[in-house]
């Protein structure tokens, strides 16, 4: 893979990652917390 093509693919990966992080942050605004990462209730449990 040429360096130019690598740069394009890398930038696409970065853009997709930013979009996913923003979407995740937006989702957490509705239900703030640790997302289950801190011994909070598992996703199967509804509050």
């Amino acid at each position, binding site marked *: 893979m040429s360096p130019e093509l690598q*740069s394009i*693919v*890398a930038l696409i990966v*970065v853009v997709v990652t930013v979009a996913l*992080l923003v979407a995740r942050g937006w989702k957490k605004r509705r239900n703030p*917390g640790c997302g289950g*990462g801190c*011994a909070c*209730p598992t996703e*199967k449990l509804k509050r």
Partner: protein
Amino acid sequence: MALPAHISASPVAAPSRTLVYALVGNPNCGKSTLFNALTGLKQKVGNYPGVTVEKKVGTAYSQHGQPITVVDLPGAYSLAARSPDEAVTRDVLLGRRADTPQPDRILCIVDATNLERNLYLVHQILDLGRPVILVLNMMDVAAASGLTIRLARLEHELGIPVIACEAVNGKGIIDLKLAMSRADLPLSRHAWDIPAAIAPAVAELQASLTSSDGKAPLIARAEALLLLTDQDSVRVAGSRPLSARTAEILRSWQQRWARDGTDWAGTLVSSRYDVIGRISGDVLQAGTATGASISDRIDGVVTHPVWGWVTLGALMTALFMSIFTLAEYPMNFIDSQVAALGEWVKASMPDGDLRDLITDGAIGGVGGVVIFLPQILILFFFIGMLESTGYMARAAFIMDRLMGRVGLNGKSFIPLLSSFACAIPGIMATRTIEDHKDRLVTILIAPLMSCSARLPVYLLMIAALVPDDRVPTMTKVGIMLLMYALGTFGAFGFAWLFKRTLLKGEPPAMIMELPPYRRPNLIEVARHMLERAWLFLRRAGTVILGISIVLWFLSAYPKAPDGTPPSQQVAQSFAGQAGRAIEPLIRPLGFDWQIGIGLITSFAAREVFVSTMGVVFNASADDDDTEPLRKALLDAKWPDGRPLFTPLVCFTLMIFYVFAMQCVSTLAVVRRETNSWKWPLFQVGYLTGTAWLISLLVYQGGRALGF
């Protein structure tokens, strides 16, 4: 063998609508264990009061295969709520919550070893006029202590099904499910003669609750009884207020009773206790065992004013010894595998941005964090053992005297202990604290307890601070203990300050139940550890990976002219510019712009500091190797050639992380729990300000002393 009447297959067809059962009982009587056994879910359990502070919903299945909704409610000693978690239980049972339907039936779980005390809540619940099943849990413990309970007699007295159960071993669950499946559960025959002088007040309030608040007659009666004996001062979000008419009637009766000077509320409570005392006398047969139990003998040591502290210190030392010794081999293995993966990618791909993104961003960032998995597992093994055995409540007990000096009580220490795992469940656990100001103080200081996210930062800094393998493990253990002690005593210091300034108030007396010691449930501990491992890896594979990729871009762009050394490239990148922007603020602490990038990114989560260092220092490495992060840090230099990560800088950085408020999730939870942005913003200000000030004193003081 014929089954008792109350658990025989019902001749009536199973109801078509999904039944809703509420699971209620005193704190630490095994509600969540029973909830897990009924629903197959994995709600957190522990051998101390206050594990569940919010209602949880799951599904069980009847003998006919019909779904049954089970609502696990926080523990309460009575329906007269004294704290926010108890208010949730009261409001769900009384149908006060707009977001939760009133349960059709109630599973009342009691600790068989403390039947008389547990029956107070049961008695209040029977007033609600809903079908109730009584579950006598921990029958094995009761039998071992020589206690005999006449089940048939209790069933006759209360007129409801009574099921003997050992939820932790799964015994009695089938009988319970059969009873829950019955379409024709009987209503209690329990009769309670309310003192005649109080009856008019109950009747008037009941009528108003029925007509103005839309309550069913029996629920209205139960709520009338509760309102007349309770201050009803604890209100939580989602709770429907009383109608103006009912509130007015209540106020007028309270004023009339105050004028009379007769404690009718106390009379009402006493008459309930009289009934409970009579029932207990009939059904309980105490054993002949005398003298101190094993639990009492252990408590003689672990709650002793001197030996209690020695025990706590020994446990903490054992924890950190394990972290430094047992974790070394798996950690080295993961380290070598991460490095080998980076080398393989570098050898397999030609030069270019994508290769750098994979090696410097993804592998460098995530790999730097993942190697701490063994230590995280050891930490949670110890926490799980302490929770499972019942030691947590003892730690709170010995802390009570110290907590009293700073204006709090031992009850605040349970949330603080939970914060050693993570501040978020710790802050949620403050719902068990009755006093609003004490709860707020505990929320404000909870992030000072060193959470598991700080562990990778401490370990990386200790590795850089004392890199020599010949340094005794006890030195590293000592540094780690110092960090945990600094956070803990810092929390006490701020509690003392807040209780005398912002949130003045008298320290309340602590009444806390010490649960009996139990053999640790190793399966539960192992399951919890695996769950933590999965969560840690999932976090590494999502948030930390994402931030590492974005950080790689920020440290690789804008591109410097060809031939620029990698370190110069990072310096003039977006990330480098951000680090340089805050460098004047952090330079007095001995930190450069590269550390500054880590301080900025770790606001998302503290362990991101480690992945940031992995990205920044791997990206700026001049050779083609993916260095282990610890080595890269030791090689880092200031522009004038001085080493960057001196022992003093590493120590200062650890102290900064002890105090700094570097966790956006915690802030979101504080906002939710305090229902205001004022307190989370105050928390950021005071904690980060303190971190900066103490770091400045340590660094400049250390330099003045020649370190």
